[in-house]
């Protein structure tokens, strides 16, 4: 089996498994909507205020939704030993791990994109910022999955890794949060957002290249 | 600076300067004292363990 066949086989397998458990796909999306809904209840429904903090709310909620979905990235494969099989296979673990991250993003990150316009309406985000919001989500949610894969592979052997996972992952999410929410904020004020988008593109490629390496190393460490 | 009291006063900023130095001192002291205590305790525990094995 060639490397690319193995890569797509892993993605296909993960997608099939995910569609058998549809609730797991829906959960992060519901969480995302629910958290955003809590904000008007907490800070008051003043449209001006909501519009001003909308980029921050949407992005913080997206961050938390991705983080909570991370556990399903390796959990079942770790428990049933498939991860060990991947480690023993002739293909480099880094590539297989990357395939798993891609599949995970398709299942958990992509649905967030679909509901994002709804949340933009909820919070009264100006229409001129919608395009930027979608663009930042397309560029940055994969980064969240990639960085998160490192944290989750470090804590996978732990009984209660949830709290530690958030401590490991959230500080690393800071740059993504800053650039993405700022881009949306600028766009809603009708300003140019090229620098932010360029930086997000750079961060995207950097994490595609760099993140699977430590994630694979951490999985090796957790298994052996 | 003429007197010791003036030195402690720090030109009116004494209540900010000295706590800063005090907190730094305490935190740095803890980082030295705790390992020393831990080492003492560990060596005592290991000695006890060895004695128990010999008996």
């Amino acid at each position, binding site marked *: 089996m060639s490397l690319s066949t193995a890569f797509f086989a892993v993605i296909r397998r993960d997608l099939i498994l995910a569609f058998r458990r549809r609730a797991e796909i829906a959960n992060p999306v519901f969480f995302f909507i629910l958290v955003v809904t809590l904000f008007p209840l907490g800070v008051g429904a003043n449209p001006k205020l909501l519009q001003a903090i909308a980029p921050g709310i949407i992005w913080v909620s997206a961050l938390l939704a991705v983080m909570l979905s991370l556990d399903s990235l390796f959990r079942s494969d770790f428990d049933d030993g498939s991860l060990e099989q991947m480690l023993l296979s002739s293909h480099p673990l880094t590539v297989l791990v990357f395939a798993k991250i891609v599949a995970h993003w398709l299942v958990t990150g992509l649905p967030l994109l679909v509901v994002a316009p709804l949340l933009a309406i909820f919070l009264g985000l100006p229409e001129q910022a919608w395009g930027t919001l979608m663009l930042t989500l397309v560029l940055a949610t994969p980064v969240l999955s990639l960085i998160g894969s490192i944290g989750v592979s470090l804590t996978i052997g*732990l009984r209660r890794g949830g709290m530690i996972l958030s401590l*490991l992952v959230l500080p690393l999410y800071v740059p993504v949060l800053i650039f993405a929410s700022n881009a949306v904020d600028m766009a809603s004020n009708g300003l140019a957002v090229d620098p932010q988008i360029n930086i997000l593109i750079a961060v995207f490629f950097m994490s595609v290249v760099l993140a699977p390496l430590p994630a694979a190393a951490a999985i090796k460490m957790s298994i052996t | 600076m003429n007197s010791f009291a003036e030195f402690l006063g720090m030109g009116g900023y004494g209540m900010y300067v000295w706590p800063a130095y005090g907190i730094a001192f305490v*935190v740095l002291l803890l*980082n030295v004292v705790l390992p020393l205590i831990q080492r003492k305790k560990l060596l005592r525990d290991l*000695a006890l363990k060895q004695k128990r094995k010999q008996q």
Partner: protein
Amino acid sequence: MSIVPAPLLRFYHRMASPPHFYSFTDKLLPWFVVIFVLLVVAGLYGGLYLAPTDYQQGDSYRIIYIHVPAAWMSLFIYVVMAISGAIGLIWRMKIADVVAISSAPIGASFTLIALVTGSLWGKPMWGTWWVWDARLTSELILLFLYLGVISLYGAIEDKRTASRAVSILALVGVVNIPIIHYSVEWWNTLHQGPTVAKMGKPSMHIDMLIPLLLMATAFKFYYAIAMMLAAKVELLSREQNSQWVKKIVEEKS
């Protein structure tokens, strides 16, 4: 022919052996303590007494003699932790693992000191205890990075595995720190403007600068002392079943 000089290589191999490291640090520690005390006394005397009062900030600026060196140390120790973690990961060197994890609480302490002293300095300058200033915010995130390392190490029972996990995390962190720092700086200039005064301006009076450098060097020696003390405990507890530890225990009792 190796590119590394032979004596250096010999030193490396010797330091890689735990009993040798243990006795070597015993010999080194008193010297370091003496140097540290001299530097601290000189630095504090220069900083708190000799250095002139700042014409803008009055005497409150004297907090920088701990704030700035502590902030430098907080970054320096993270880098040391990542490098020794990498050495431990690649060459499976036990001592490097121990040095990496023993550094973490000290680095976290310096980060905490930088935050608290920054806040104490900010109160008279800004009028509030906390301002989302770029430096303070970066330090706060750095503190979380340290806490992540410490709690990950504590959560994994097998200390060998824990060390490898910590090394991977520290390496990921060290790649991210410049990005985090840059992003926070960028965010700060957008939201605050340049009105917030910066601490430790590059154009410093020489009488103010010398004590600062003395304190910075003193903190380096302090780190070496505290790290060696912590490393010795870690080493003893990891190697408690080996012959050399048993010998030390017998000698003590």
